[in-house]
């Protein structure tokens, strides 16, 4: 699992995740993700187009981060998840806190 910061400014932090966000993947990026959220104080756009699998621990990580951002009035939007990942997000109901966008414009509107 890999986390890359694509762009960071005062308004938005854009990151890209790739790989499997399961128990092992959560262990690999969890601390970095938490650190980014704790220190950036911006909205987050999470590109999940390269995430092939989302396990319950991955959902919990995303939800925890989104909840943390929400507590400071910020948002997290997931961009272009693969169908299976999107289904997992939708079924779990977390999309209520973490909206899903399928393009940049939609993401901008949601943020």
């Amino acid at each position, binding site marked *: 699992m890999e986390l890359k910061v694509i762009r960071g400014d005062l308004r938005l932090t854009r990151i890209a995740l790739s790989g499997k966000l*399961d*128990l092992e993947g959560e262990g690999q990026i969890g601390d970095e993700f938490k650190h980014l959220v704790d220190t950036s104080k911006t909205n987050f756009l999470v590109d999940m187009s390269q995430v092939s*699998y989302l*396990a*319950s*621990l991955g*959902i*919990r990580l995303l*939800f*925890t981060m989104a*909840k943390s951002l929400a507590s400071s009035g910020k948002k997290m939007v997931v961009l272009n998840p693969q169908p*299976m990942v999107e289904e*997992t997000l*939708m*079924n*779990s*109901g*977390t999309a*209520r*806190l973490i909206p899903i966008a399928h393009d940049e414009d939609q993401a901008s509107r949601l943020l």
Partner: protein
Amino acid sequence: MKIRTRLMLSYLAIILLTTVGMVFLANKMVDRLTSENLDTASEAVSALAKADNDLSERILTKFGEKLVETKGHEAAALLSLEFSKRDLQDYDVLRKDEELRKIAAQNIFTPEGDGIAGHIDVFDTKGVAVWHLNSSVEGRNYAQWKDEFPAMWNLVQRSFTEDKVQGYYTFITRDNKVVKKFMALSHVPGTPFIVSAVVEIDKYFLPVQEQIRNADKKAVQKARASIAQSTSSTLEQARLLSLGGSLVLLGCTVFFGFWFTRSMSRPIMGLRDGVKQIGAGDFEAQVPERGPEEVKQLAQTFNNLGRQLAQYVHRLAEAAAARQRMESELSIAAEIQKSLLPTNFSPLPGHEDVDIYALMQPAQNVGGDFYDFFFIDEENLCFAIGDVCGKGVPAAILMAVTKSLLETGSGESSDPGQLLKQVNRRLFVNNENCVFVTIFCGVLNLKDGQLIYANGGHDSPMLVRGQESVEFLAPPAGPALGLFEDAVFPTQQVTLKPGETLFAFTDGVTEAVDKEGHFFSKQHLAKLVSQQADSPVRHLVEHLFKEVEAFSQGMDQADDITIMALRLGKTA
């Protein structure tokens, strides 16, 4: 091979090679020196012999010259005596006097007396030959040969005025052979006659000289043989001395080698014994810190290592004990979790009109999946299948709590939506870590087959009406439990006819992966369920477990796997 033996053999090999090399080189040097000395001695002997020969030749020549001169003088003296009685004017009369002829014309023999080397003849102060062994020469003047033999004529001419004359000249014989001759001329006192003593050098001196040369050659050969023998003897003695010295040296070095290898190997053998002791479990074993610096350092390192190893083993034993305790506790937890899940399936006491079967296989000792079913009254069977976020003991605890909340809540409301809502609220409280549970919960009326259900974020079960009719129920209308305080879980309804099956599962089934990373998938699951639609629910569940296991092909199970099947009406 022992290190001591190896050291000893290496040491001996070096010593042997060195000794053999030294002996070889020494022999080579002795051979070379001997050969050079032999050559030098031979050259010296040859030079000495040559010098001796040359000296002998010179002495012999002088001696010979003197002999010839003396013979001439003797003849001159004898003739002087004889001439006092005779008339010297008439040469013819004189030539006829045999007494005079014997003296004045005679052969000169070699010093060995075995051959003629020359002759004595007499001529007068005008050069006329008076007596000569070759009588045809008598009366002829030597001057007639002055052009043919100028050196001879020079000597003859000089004798006319000088008292004693001698010298060498070259003479050509009748058979054109060039010979060297020595001539000594002596005046017969008181007469006009000159005695000429002539010898052929080769005939007169060379035999003796040849003898001298042969004697010298023999002496040289003898000297060389003597030198060679002496050298050979010296060489043999040198070799014996070298060999003896080498053997003594070898003996000393073998003795020293034993001492050396023993002193080298003893600390290492101590280390070996120490390692053996540690291998046998004695981690307190210490080896003596002695020997060469490197071995001493090795022993110190070994002792430190032993101490560290003892500490490590102690910690490892503690960790192993802790792990054993943990595994034991996990095993107990797994047993407890297992005991929380119902195992008495069919026939349900007093309810043979429903067939239900379920299996749960955790990915670790204890898992987060669960299933449950119980009657809330005589006609309604409440059942649920769920998946707790995460794995291990925390997930198992949350699973137990959730299951307990479900059973407790079912006493207050038979509506699955309300039931999930109550459980959600309870789970949300103090849920700082955002753990959650997905649950599908239904209540089946066994009389009319009405199934009321609610879904909190769980994969939708399949409704199996036959082999050609397998459909997923509507997607979850509510979120996973524990995430949102105000979450609602709308209820939905469907009717099951006898023989129709509700097939529920957790994501551990559809997200199982094979070696190539492919997911088992819902589509594949639906296809397999369709093929087994008419099988008894127990067979259906067990068969699908085997299918998942075969699909994974020995890959580690990433998630808990739970399958539950419920069929209205007893399967034949």
